[in-house]
């Protein structure tokens, strides 16, 4: 067992874990964060995407011990004072989700995308979200949501494309 410490959604957690424990299972089973989802086990679907020190990672392919000393942000930690993150609002308003299972990972990947490229084109959004699979929406409204959030986060009018 290894002793690890990480900050998750602003709270510090110390735990003893097996070295083989995946970060997703540490978050879900030990810390009770049900908003991180497992969809494929092979790093294809991105439902488990979280931010590690602000960069998106797939928590099914990170060991909990690799996150030792790092700061993790999940979809459960991005609202501020009860206000949704603009990306959460945009997914809701643009109907960028149906069953919602891919949504937390999609939102975290999209936040990471806008951090690197605050004003992406439709094509850039599509290319950058290639690691996150959605089976419901055909991506049409996900792309729309990310564009809407980008505009809002830049302080410009929120008209969707």
């Amino acid at each position: 067992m290894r002793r690890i410490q990480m900050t998750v959604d602003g709270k510090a957690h110390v735990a003893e874990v097996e070295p083989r424990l995946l970060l997703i299972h540490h978050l879900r089973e030990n810390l009770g964060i049900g908003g991180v989802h497992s969809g494929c086990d092979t790093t294809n679907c991105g439902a488990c995407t979280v931010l590690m020190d602000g960069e998106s990672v797939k928590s099914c392919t990170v060991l909990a011990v690799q996150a030792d000393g790092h700061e993790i942000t999940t979809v459960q930690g991005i609202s501020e004072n009860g206000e949704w993150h603009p990306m959460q609002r945009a997914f809701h308003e643009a109907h960028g989700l149906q069953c919602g299972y891919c949504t937390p990972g999609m939102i975290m990947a999209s936040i990471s995308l806008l951090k690197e490229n605050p004003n992406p084109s439709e094509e850039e959004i599509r290319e950058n979200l290639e690691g996150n699979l959605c089976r419901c929406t055909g991506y049409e409204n996900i792309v729309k949501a990310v564009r809407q959030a980008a505009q809002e986060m830049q302080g410009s009018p929120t008209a969707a494309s």
Partner: protein
Amino acid sequence: MTEAPEKYVGGGVPRKEDPALVTGRATWTDNIKLPGMLHASLLRSPFAHAKITSIDVSEAKNRPGVVAAFTGEDLADEWAGIIPCGWQITEDQRTPTHWPLAKDEVNYAGDAVAVVVATDRYTAKDALEFIEVEYEELPAVTDLETVLDEGTPLVHEVYDSNRCYTWTLDVGEVDEAFEKADVVVKERYLQPRLIPNAIEPRAVVAHPDPVNGGFTIYTSTQVPHIAKFVLSGICGVPEQKLRVVAPDVGGGFGSKLNVYAEEALALALARRLDTPIKWVEERSENYLSTTHGRGQIQDIELAATSDGKILGLRADLVADMGAYLQLSGSLIPILGAFMYCGVYDFDAYHFECEGVFTNKTPIDAYRGAGRPEAAYAIERIMDALARRLEMDPAEVRRINFHEPFDEPKTQPAGIQYDSGDYNKTLDRVLELANYEGLREEQRRRRESGDPVQLGIGFSTYTEICGLAPSQVVNALGGGGGGWEAAEVRMLASGKVEVVTGTSPHGQGHVTSWSQIAADALGVDLDDVEVIHGDTAAAPWGRDTYGSRSLAVGGVAVHMAAQKVVEKGKKIAAHMLEAAEGDIEFEGGRFSVAGSPDQNATIQDVAGAAYLASDLPEGMEPLLSEEQIYDPPNFTFPFGAHMCVTEVDTETGFVKIRDYFAVDDCGPVINPTIVDGQVHGGIAQGIAEALYEEAVYDEDGNLVTGSMVDYLVPGAPELPHFTLDRTVTPSPSNVMGVKGIGEAGTIGAPVAVINSVIDALSPFGVTHIDKPASPFNVWSTIQEATGDGAGTRDADLSGRPAQATDNVDEQGGETR
């Protein structure tokens, strides 16, 4: 008091479901944790077909953290019945014995043979390594082409062949139609197996209820009500002792329209060990053990006159059932049988389906379920007819369309379509796409020998939705009704609870049913709560599949709300001391005709009905009404899709440049949700056409066994969709609604493939199978031309100025 004079129906109301989902607070089955809960993990057969000669779980049982381990034999007395098929399509249909754990023989790679129960999932999975199984391999049956041949090994030795059933339908004088035809077009189409890929894998938690000695089953399912009935039968738990809950469910697409071995196992283990049991599927298990879709060979033959009028159609199918029949396995191709005649008016139709067993994962519903296959066949052969007669594919369709109709019309397969106006959707899609301009561009690119050729593909489809009139279900051998239940309750405070038997998993029923009820009752949208997916809270239901939820369940909500208003009128008349016939109801307010000042709100009336101290003589208290609605007919949405592809003839890469879809699902409750359903349906249809196939080797191993090997498209693989709608109400129900969940998946695959063939037709290509992968397209061109097609230094002047140049960007980028 809240009042809402404006109408919600028809507006793009943002979804009520979203807050939990976008904040990560949804209740997925895997999020449920109960005191004392143990985790189950299954050992699955690595062989497609084998006898189990010995199996020993004793070492696994001794591992630290392991609580129990069982073989199929160990659990044999847990079962009161096999995993059943809900449809007896023919009297002699063969339904193989199918236990939740195999005992003597495994029949597909992935068939479960043992289960370990441990304190956590890692420990349970580790212990599987310590189970000793000896198998005696048997020959695997994997090839649909030879499955019925003499000498082919048997999947199930108890039968004398691999035939499950043969089902036929003959309408009109088919042979005569073919004899008098000027042209006969005959083609063979393959429908590859597909893996549904709901992003949430299946999961189940079985919880013994110490109070009543029963069980609560939380399961990621589309069908909690059906699961309750079926699990009762498999496990021998009296139905009244079972409660099934579908919490938040992460997509289904037909794959969760089933009752699975793991659900029965979880229940049996919870009973055996008297503690809560959780099982969560891994994706690799999902690929092996959750039902697949499609899997057919279709021989299609069309008879027509020299001017393109259809005279008759023959469709002969071999349909793969896989190793066992799951809930609707035998039904799926038969659901399609009534759709091969499409939107076309002719008299003679022959259909025959041979359902067959193979040593592969069972096949069952996948979005569209038999109907995409049917639409594919008729729409491909319409293009083949157009090519043969050198007619425009839009024109050959148009001259065969049924005339517009708004009352039920009998069509060639013998059933009655509810309403249709097929020219309207075709005209609109031609206009949206600038069809003439596209043909002109195509001509230029062909003339200039552009290595990237333009393809234009059509699909003018109709589909069978709103499953189903119970009499039809029973006539097809179905073991359950097709009705749906709704209850609308006005609470003491004037707020509203809507109870529905539909079980949404992404479709937004909570929002849409709220819109329906709020408008009918004249209340605020936020005053309505929708209760679903729990057999204790929503006791009656037939669940969600087959684009049935709105056309049956939503209509039931509307009708129940109307009953509430009718009862409310009686109470209001009593309160206002007026005749019931003089009471008008509008915007949530009952008033006396001609005296608008004399009025009572529906909330006042609900309060009076709850108080019950001053009601009309003999009236029961409460303003709450139930509607069990059995639809008189199916509904038949329709549409016209056009796919515009750019096909690189040097690499075989297919880029979808534009996708246009004009769908008609009758009046729309929530256009935003409807558009979303169409987007997702088309995306799955494109995936079927270009990317996806469950590939098995000759030994019956699933070669595409993970998302690494099976291409579920991401955002870069899919285009922007251009949508429009026409509105042709259905006479089948009081709201005129039809359903939209499967339209895209039914319309799209063939529009894409027709487009690819159209692009390649200058090379003499008339056929390509799904999926039209770069290799498949490239090989097809090579076969047609005998050598390389197109040249890099070709004249590109035929392209429009704004066209994307995928010569440069393709680079083998097909992921």
